[in-house]
């Protein structure tokens, strides 16, 4: 059952820190087990680099099961790699050919400055969330859970929208580096639930204002975001955000 090992050539973006100029560096990793995850392949490369007294490649990652949203690189020109519905940590080496060259770049956007190598600063997304990615309730000051029924279709669609893991791939893949899908998903999640309605207008106004403040681009409906989203969130989220925004404009 021994599987054929792969030889993989890598072209990886290396950048010392936010202020330095970066460049691509080529590496070759031999004996890559096709069952390896992409990040494990980088682990193996890093082990080799450490032994050679070179600096390992920095990349963000945490849960390695596609749910925390911490990892994220542009692999061969596509955010989170070639297969849809996946995070970078979900990418497996069997998706590549023996001898293939893989280009690995950080997520690029003005709002996501590079920290080091493949690690970028996505705190802009947190700042957007701080402007309204919640219902303004205090701990304890809430009604009994049964007091507000939620129609199942709404609950289900809210869940679809709430599935966003905040990885930022939508921004990375968007030709305009727009965060519309990220914001749209959160606005939609809460707009679909009765609990989120009281401050729906304030939420969308403030979150969009912060999104603009952070220097993201404007959505022009390319739909690349939906195509790379690991949770496959539909751009109808953006449509709903715009409806909410229009409503807010007339308030």
């Amino acid at each position, binding site marked *: 059952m021994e599987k054929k090992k792969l030889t993989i050539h890598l072209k990886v973006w290396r950048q010392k820190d936010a202020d330095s100029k970066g460049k691509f560096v080529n590496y070759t990793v031999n004996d890559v087990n096709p069952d390896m995850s992409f990040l494990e392949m980088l682990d193996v490369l890093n082990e080799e680099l450490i032994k050679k007294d070179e600096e390992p490649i920095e990349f963000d990652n945490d849960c390695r099961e596609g749910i925390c949203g911490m990892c994220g690189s*542009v692999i061969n020109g*596509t955010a989170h790699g070639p297969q849809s519905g996946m995070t970078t940590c979900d990418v497996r080496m069997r998706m590549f050919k023996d001898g293939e060259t893989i280009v690995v770049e950080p997520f690029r956007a003005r709002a996501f400055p590079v920290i080091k190598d493949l690690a970028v600063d996505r705190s802009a997304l947190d700042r957007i969330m701080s402007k309204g990615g919640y219902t303004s309730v205090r701990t304890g000051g809430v009604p009994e859970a049964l007091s507000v029924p939620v129609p199942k279709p709404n609950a289900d669609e809210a869940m679809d929208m709430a599935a966003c893991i905040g990885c930022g791939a939508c921004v990375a893949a968007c030709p305009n580096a727009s965060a519309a899908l990220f914001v749209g998903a959160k606005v939609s999640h809460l707009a679909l639930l009765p609990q989120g309605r009281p401050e729906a207008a304030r939420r969308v106004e403030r979150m969009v204002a912060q999104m603009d403040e952070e220097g993201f681009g404007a959505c022009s*409906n390319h739909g690349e975001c939906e195509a790379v989203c690991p949770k496959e969130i539909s751009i109808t989220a*953006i449509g709903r955000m*715009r409806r*909410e925004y229009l409503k807010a404009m007339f308030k």
Partner: protein
Amino acid sequence: MRFKMILASSLSKKIYMSIAGLVWSAFLLVHLLGNLQLLNPDRDPFNKYSYFLTHQTGEFIYLAEFLLAFFFITHFLYAIWVQIGNWRARPHGYSMVRWAKNTSKRSLGSVTMIYTGALVLIFLVLHLIHFKYGEVVYYTPKGYTHQIRDMYFTVMEFFKNPVNVFFYVAVMVLLGFHLSHGAWSAFQSLGLSGKRFTPFIYTIGVLFAIVVAVGFVFLPLWIYFTRGGAL
């Protein structure tokens, strides 16, 4: 704050662009239908239609022209504004870009909007120079007692020149690309989207673009190859 929200946010900018784009899309359709009268070997209906628009609608024509101009400029200025923002949003591009296939609506049309748009703008200026402010020839159509402009003649003359035909055909193809993304996208930007509606409007948008482009491409070609030499 309020002012910014209503006029200058990334969402509101697109709202105005969409409205303007839809107005122009509607205008294009009307324009195309009107132009189909060029297929009629009789020059009178077309010229009378043209005369009606310019002389018999009272103040309306000025209002219409004003609105069209207003929406065009709105569309154009917001487009520049948005595009500069979008360029600035990614100062360092990728060395390799591979479009995600899947559900992506990215297309040649969608990524060239600003360029096709700019060419359409140039075209529009030339178009107005060619026809609205071009050579004016008068004649008296059947049943009329006064002279009106023979727009039909101007068009036919214009498209005798293969260079003109080529230019118009090329720009109309580009316009088709522009509309192939712009038409459905306007609905999405206005928040008119949904699980079933989005695929529907996307298809309609593409069909609309094809109809408009094919229509406007067909006219000069048809004139050049069949009627052009007849006059």
